[in-house]
């Protein structure tokens, strides 16, 4: 599904990603962990080209993406992204948030888009909030709308950047539940999170990032109980 080879990315001299290589298979749920500033967000944002890599190769669904020649908008249509701070469009209702891209990008008729949006909102448990404005929702509800908005484009992959980090503790569960359902349906997911319980339960693989390198990559049963690297061990001690 996604193949990354020797990906490098620097910000004004600061080498954030150093030779990252990894592969994400279809229907796989991969959790990305690492200390703050280790480059998790940057890696995720390189995958949908919100950040443009300096060097290396990114292959998506069998197509090597040339950032100069490929239409990146088309690539992004196929990759949903969920942000830490939701980034819902505040001037639009929940429903309008969800149908915006399907109508303007996929050129769906308004009625088709609305019908599909309502189905997805139903799935994330927010059909009754369709005509509310984002401001009227709790953090957990906002994030579920953000997930619905991304799903409405029928993406092949979903990227999550700390989707629960901005939430009050009692609201984390409902968002994780929504994500679990997605995983169960076979969605390919790359998730940056500090929710280790969730990772243990849902992830097929956990990847540990440190200083711009992947230092550990394994099944959660091994990763959490018997990590190979001393740095992983120390990091897990801190967060568990």
């Amino acid at each position, binding site marked *: 599904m996604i193949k990354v080879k020797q990906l490098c990315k620097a910000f004004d001299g600061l080498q954030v990603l150093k030779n990252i290589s990894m592969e994400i298979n279809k229907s796989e749920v991969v959790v990305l962990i690492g200390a703050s500033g280790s480059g998790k967000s940057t890696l995720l944002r390189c995958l949908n080209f919100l950040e443009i890599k300096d060097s290396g190769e990114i292959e998506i669904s069998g197509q090597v993406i040339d950032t100069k020649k490929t239409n990146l908008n088309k690539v992004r249509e196929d990759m949903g992204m969920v942000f830490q701070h939701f980034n819902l469009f505040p*001037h639009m209702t929940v*429903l309008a948030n969800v149908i*915006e891209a399907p109508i303007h990008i996929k050129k769906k008729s308004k009625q088709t888009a609305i019908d599909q949006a309502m189905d997805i909102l139903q799935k994330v448990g927010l059909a009754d909030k369709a005509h509310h404005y984002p401001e009227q929702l709790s953090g957990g509800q906002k994030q579920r709308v953000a997930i619905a908005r991304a799903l409405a484009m029928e993406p092949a992959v979903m990227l999550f950047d700390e989707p629960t980090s901005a939430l009050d503790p009692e609201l984390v569960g409902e968002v994780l539940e929504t994500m679990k359902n997605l995983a169960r349906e076979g969605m390919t997911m790359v998730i940056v999170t500090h929710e280790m319980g969730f990772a243990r339960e849902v992830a097929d693989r956990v990847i540990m990032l440190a200083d711009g390198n992947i230092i550990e990559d394994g099944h959660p049963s091994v990763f959490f109980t018997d990590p190979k690297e001393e740095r992983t061990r120390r990091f897990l001690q801190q967060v568990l």
Partner: protein
Amino acid sequence: MNSITSMISIFQTHGFEFLKATLTTVQLTAVSLLIAMIIGLVFAFFKVSNIFVLEKLADTYIFLVRGMPLIVQLMFLYYGISSVFVLSDFTAGAIALGIHSGAYIAEIFRGAIQSIDRGQMEAARSLGMPYSLSMRRIILPQAFKRAVPSLGNQFIIGLKDSSLVAYIAVTELFNHALSAQAENYMPFETYFVVGIYYLILVLIFTLIFNRIEARLDVSKGRKRRGGKRFDQGKTAVQSV
């Protein structure tokens, strides 16, 4: 006492002409501000384009307009424009005023666009929306709302600045005052009366803008729609 009777007599002799001239002032202001809004929007886009040449072009334009007294620009542009194109004094004056206000409005729009959270553009782009569509559908509606108070202020300045075209023979309000006081030898009283006309115009402008602001105010807007939302669920969607 003497002055007051003089003012009343000025009202009686010139009141109607002043009213007609007021109409010209309003038309001049409206046309010049329309031009200024278009110029302002274009140069604001230049400023946020990240394209060096366009940014410098916008900087230069804003520098020139801000760096010279309006009356100098007016004369310069008026003679410049009328030497190339055959235009009425009104049109030439409106264009000159528009070019002047445009620089300030460009700065207002630029500030408003840049004040919108980066996450909004990123969310739109992550859905596959191209830059221009994201601007039009997501950023500008929010920026516009935020720009309204400053725009109102700039519109009032534009209204008052329009008095300077009296010196390029447009017979608007101030031009009438100039000729009236030359006839009646009562400059103090004449300018006082004309001042009242301007005050009333500005008052009307202010009231209109206050209404627009109240209408756009997110929380108030929602309350109004709130009553309809549950029984006429579709209204919010239809406005999308």
